[in-house]
């Protein structure tokens, strides 16, 4: 009996140890980046352009590019994501072929490797759509048929689509059926019910989906490697077919292709810290919003 209990304790402790190891690794990573990155982080670092071959100055163009990228991406992904989520939650018949195929497509979209999105962005948006626009509108002159922030944002929108759909769908489903019934009983049509009653009540979920997509989009580098990210540009992007600097891409290039790693290391650490803080703040906001939504849904059930 005691031996059995002892073995029991040992095994339970082993599983607890796994948790400790995971949390410990996370703490080490965050601590290391916070300590080294904090040294160089300052207001001027965030607002100045890079100088002296990236060994001095700041990362403002990269921050600007990242924000512009995710902002454009949000404009494309949120409307489509919300509509697909409305289809799943409000219109779909569970056994229709459209439902099954759409569900399967969204699941698979979430599993496509990010580098494949990069190939897709190059092959479809840049070569096919971009070159097509050039042939039709610019007499073949290279205008949109090249890597650009517009194509990067569209590529990123396709990548983050499942994130938005999942989050919005959960929110739509958490709106009580009685709201829909009440609205219908007052004579509202289905679309009126959805857009004036259900969707406004699911707004925190739409916000959560948007934020999670932004966080994901800001952190992904592989999809934009070939569709518009640049290591250094003297000007900020102002047109849709401009190239742009981006935080994650900046980190990648600085880490792997810097001629003098030791000289750029402090700046590199600070850049990593900025990207990490950005994505964490976004994620924490999203988690908090979603928890509030879940608590409300549970209370009304």
């Amino acid at each position, binding site marked *: 009996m005691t031996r059995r209990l002892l073995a029991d304790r040992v095994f339970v402790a082993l599983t607890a140890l796994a948790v400790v190891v995971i949390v410990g690794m996370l703490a080490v990573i965050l601590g290391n980046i916070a300590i080294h990155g904090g040294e160089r982080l300052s207001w001027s670092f965030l607002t100045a352009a890079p100088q002296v071959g990236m060994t001095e100055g700041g990362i403002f163009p990269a921050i600007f590019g990242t924000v512009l990228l995710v902002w454009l991406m949000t404009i494309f992904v949120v409307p489509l994501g919300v509509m697909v989520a409305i289809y*799943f939650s409000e219109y779909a018949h569970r056994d229709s072929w459209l439902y099954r195929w759409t569900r399967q497509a969204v*699941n698979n979209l979430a599993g496509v490797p990010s580098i*494949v999105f990069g190939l897709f962005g190059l092959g479809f948006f840049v070569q096919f759509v971009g070159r097509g626009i050039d042939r039709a509108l610019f007499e073949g002159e290279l205008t949109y048929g090249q890597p650009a922030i517009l194509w990067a944002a569209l590529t990123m929108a396709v990548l983050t689509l499942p994130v938005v759909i999942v989050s919005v769908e959960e929110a739509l489903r958490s709106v009580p059926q009685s709201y829909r019934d009440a609205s219908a009983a007052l004579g509202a049509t*289905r679309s009126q019910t959805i857009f004036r009653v259900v969707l406004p009540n699911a707004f925190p979920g739409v916000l959560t989906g948007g934020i999670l997509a932004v966080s994901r989009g800001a*952190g992904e580098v*592989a999809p934009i490697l070939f569709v518009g990210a640049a290591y250094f540009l003297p000007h900020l992007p102002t047109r849709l077919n401009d190239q742009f600097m981006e935080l994650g891409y900046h980190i*990648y290039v600085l880490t792997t292709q810097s001629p003098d790693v030791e000289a750029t290391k402090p700046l590199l650490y600070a850049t990593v810290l900025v990207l990490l803080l950005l*994505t964490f703040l976004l994620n924490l906001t999203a988690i908090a919003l979603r928890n509030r939504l879940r608590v409300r849904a549970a209370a009304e059930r």
Partner: protein
Amino acid sequence: MSTATLELSSSAVSRDRRRRIDRLTQVWVYLSAAAAIVLILLIFVFVAREAIPIFVSAAVHEEVTLETLFLPQSYGTPEAPLPYVWQPVSQVPKYSLMPLFVGTLKVTLVAMLFAGPLAILAAIYTTEFAPRWLREVIKPVVELLAGIPSVVLGFFALIVLASWIQDVFGLDFRLNAINAGVGLGLAVIPIIYTLTEDALTAVPRRFRNASLALGATLWQTAWRVVLPGALPGVFAALVLGFGRAIGETMIVLMASGNAAITSWSFAEPVRTLSATIAAELAEVVFGSPHYHVLFFIGTLLFAVTFLLNWMGTLMVERLRRRLTGAAG
């Protein structure tokens, strides 16, 4: 009388308009759903399209065929044969995918051996043993790990982790399969953990109660009742984690050393399929054989991860039906 008719007809008109808007909205919603299907098809078509010349183009066949991609070639001398070489930029371009397959397999294996047990054990602790408040702490912490961008994990693996691992194991190379695998494992842990946790939670409470009532300890209940019940879900978690590991790019691109060597030593630098695309596509000539080979690799990655995801979701679906069926 006449005003009444007017009101009646105007409300009929507005009802008509409302109905038309309702109809249009529905069409719009259905088109959006169809767009999701179209998008996944577009991805496949436009990646695969650039890989087709490998099969049909005579110009491409002068440099590379399916045989040179997969079968042993005689690149070396008779004394030192080099059957598998990836060297696309050289006098005689050599395109053997074997070093990349081996590299991908090695890194993924390390990642799964590192992340799998850790994530599954942690998930068991969270659902079976942890007090409620601790559970509410652990889950967001793991979500935080999932939120770290892969380029940051790659940076950490390259700058910090590589030196530690080299010192601990006394390795010759700073960047190797172990280092890249552990870095990759960090990205895979949250996936396996979350899906395993879902599967364990789905096992009905009364299974546990019955086991405990029969005198089993907490561990015996978790190990012999709950885990077997959730096994398809745990397996699905591993499959989906594996899919993520094969496709992940930035971590291996930064932390693996990127040498295309065909060797089974985990202490040597490796080059994976995904990292090869990332590292080479930017400098490749548009429409060259090399360009098409890189898209061919992309098509392979797409196909493999598509298959793994399909299997994974199928398993999760089956488990859900089995457990809810048992409860009903």
